[in-house]
């Protein structure tokens, strides 16, 4: 009974929103890139970059907002690398993403040690403070849940309808969705498939970077190795769970955020079982809900497939060779 009463506490829901925010931002990023046809396992690396460079930016400028700007740029940069590898070089996207994730891990942990030395002295940077809504925050339940959060939480929530609108009601959204479903058709009407994919990846990187910074700059205000702890992969799972739609993916991350808040609360209750069981909880919740409530779902048709432009150099060469060479034997 004590456990169930947790679910109606305002603190629990406030923590849920706070813990959902990084995942929500990353999952929205995942929706953009997967919808454009890039199978994006690189969310985790971009989040890690955002977490580190957000912290460093905030520390050196002494300004949390500039930290978020640095985070967005660093996330976009690593996604550009992923884009170059999967769009231009056309290597397997899953495997490339494992490479960029490892690069992010190497760059962040090495830079951290190079800046602070091996003693890992913990300097805290300025972080975001909760927005002051005045008397609104005194509303019994909602006040604590909705009106006591940091700005990034509100930004994430606002981005859900905005992403939905962009994806389904604008020209760009149509381009992105079409590129993921049928790049050939998009190419035929004269839209640059590569450009659409690069732009979606940059959006994705910015969102993941913000999500990473939302881990470091909303309370702990510091960094340690692999601080995102695989949240990017949970975001990928959320994208699949939410059937590649911004609203669906957001609801899926809410489920995981609630699982994480729940395990934090359970730890506080002091049960006599190893805490690792609590850590396990959000992952089990995600997996069980994927298996039993969702069923398998098909993503955008062209996801994971590199697109070879019909006018690309290799093909042109082949065509011209076939056309110009006079056939001797008929």
């Amino acid at each position, binding site marked *: 009974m004590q456990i169930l009463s947790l679910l109606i506490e305002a603190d629990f829901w406030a923590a849920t929103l706070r813990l959902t925010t990084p995942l929500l931002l990353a999952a929205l990023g995942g929706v953009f890139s997967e919808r454009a046809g890039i199978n994006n396992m690189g969310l985790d690396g971009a989040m890690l970059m955002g977490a580190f460079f957000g912290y460093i930016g905030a520390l050196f400028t002494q300004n949390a907002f500039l930290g978020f700007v640095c985070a967005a740029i660093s996330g976009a940069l690593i996604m550009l690398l992923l884009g170059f590898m999967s769009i231009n070089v056309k290597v397997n996207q899953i495997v490339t993403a494992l490479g960029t994730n490892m690069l992010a*891990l190497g760059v962040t942990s090495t830079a951290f040690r190079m800046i602070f030395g091996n003693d890992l002295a913990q300097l805290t940077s300025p972080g975001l403070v909760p927005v002051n809504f005045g008397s609104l925050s005194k509303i019994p339940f909602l006040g604590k849940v909705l009106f006591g959060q940091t700005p990034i939480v509100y930004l994430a929530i606002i981005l859900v309808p905005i992403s939905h609108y962009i994806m389904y009601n604008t020209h760009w959204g149509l381009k992105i969705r079409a590129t993921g479903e049928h790049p050939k058709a998009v190419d035929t009407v004269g839209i640059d498939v590569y450009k659409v994919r690069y732009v979606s990846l940059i959006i994705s990187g910015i969102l993941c970077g913000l999500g990473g910074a939302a881990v470091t700059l909303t309370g702990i205000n510091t960094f340690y190795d692999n601080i995102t702890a695989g949240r990017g992969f949970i975001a990928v*799972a959320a994208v699949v769970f939410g059937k590649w739609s911004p609203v669906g993916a957001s609801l899926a991350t809410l489920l995981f955020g609630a699982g994480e808040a729940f395990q934090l609360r359970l730890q506080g209750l002091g049960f006599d079982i190893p805490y690792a069981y609590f850590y396990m909880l959000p992952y089990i919740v995600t997996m069980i809900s994927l298996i039993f409530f969702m069923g398998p779902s098909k993503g955008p048709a062209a996801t994971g497939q590199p697109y070879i432009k019909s006018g690309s150099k290799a093909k042109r060469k082949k065509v011209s060779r076939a056309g110009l060479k006079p056939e001797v034997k008929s």
Partner: protein
Amino acid sequence: MNTQFDYKRIETGLSYLISSLLSIAVALIISSFILLGQGKDPLQAFSLIFQGGIGDMAAFGASLVRACPLMLAALGIAFAFKAGIYNIGAEGQIYLGAMFATWVGILPLGLPKIIHLPLAILTGMAAGASWAFIPAYLKVKKGFNEVIMTILLNYIGVYFVNASVHSYLQEPNGYYPQTSKVLETATLPKLMANSELHAGILLGLIGAVILYVILQKTDFGYQLRCVGSNPEASRTSGMNAKLTLIAAMLVSGAFAGLAGASEVLGYQHLLLENFSPNTGYDAISVALLGRLNPIGVVIAAIFIGVLRTGANTMQIMMGVPVTIVYIIQAIIILCVLAFTNWKLDLSRFFERGAKDANSKLANRS
């Protein structure tokens, strides 16, 4: 014999070797810029890595101990990737394998070594294989994405093992979260007097040969490669793609379980919390660097083992953070992928050479 075929194999082997060496060179060049930026001498850093990793027998022994779990897990991963199923779950499978091998290893069964040791190893392999069976079944029967499932199972598996070490597997009356020591009858024998090198590395070498033979010389291996390169065509030509995928995943999980088992039974001798962090993910890069070829994986694992052990020496002597190895490793993976796609087409090079020679001859006449 079909000499044409043999030439081709030598050619691909050669182009793999050249592109791997090129990737390593690119990684070293980029990391030397990082080192120069920090005011450290890159040549000194690399020579320290070399000395610390392969300088003498003791150092090389330590590198091989490092390489052993990577090699075993990467062999399995490469096998699954060959079949076109992305097993990212080696991490969880290693932990489960280690846990069950330890469990058998600490049971006072009163068995002689010749039974107890294989029993512990096989239990570990079975545990790894069963953990791999879950995503394999979900993919084949229900169509779930194996990448996401294996990643989720990694977290669940690692936390499960950690929880077990904290509770029922913890050593009796012990304070630390660790199991009691594995019995003498269940430990892998040591290979060298003044080093920790254990027989696990032999398991890796034997495993590589077995997997190579399976892949290249058996019907099952042929089927597996077909399913991996073109699932649709192999299905229509009457192969059982689903069964092949499950079998590949089971083998993959068994090897990851073996990696965990040999790490505990050969090197650590008891199970700790987080006893081998990130090995499962590192093994993926080893598998890729080895071009998914069992023999290549063995070489790649030893290379990464040397790199890791040597980097520790570098950190101690020069104060360069050991994590720079991650950057080197990541750049190597990305370059290997890129160079594989821009295929270093030696065959065309040879052909052109032959053509040039022919045309010269023709001009002369």
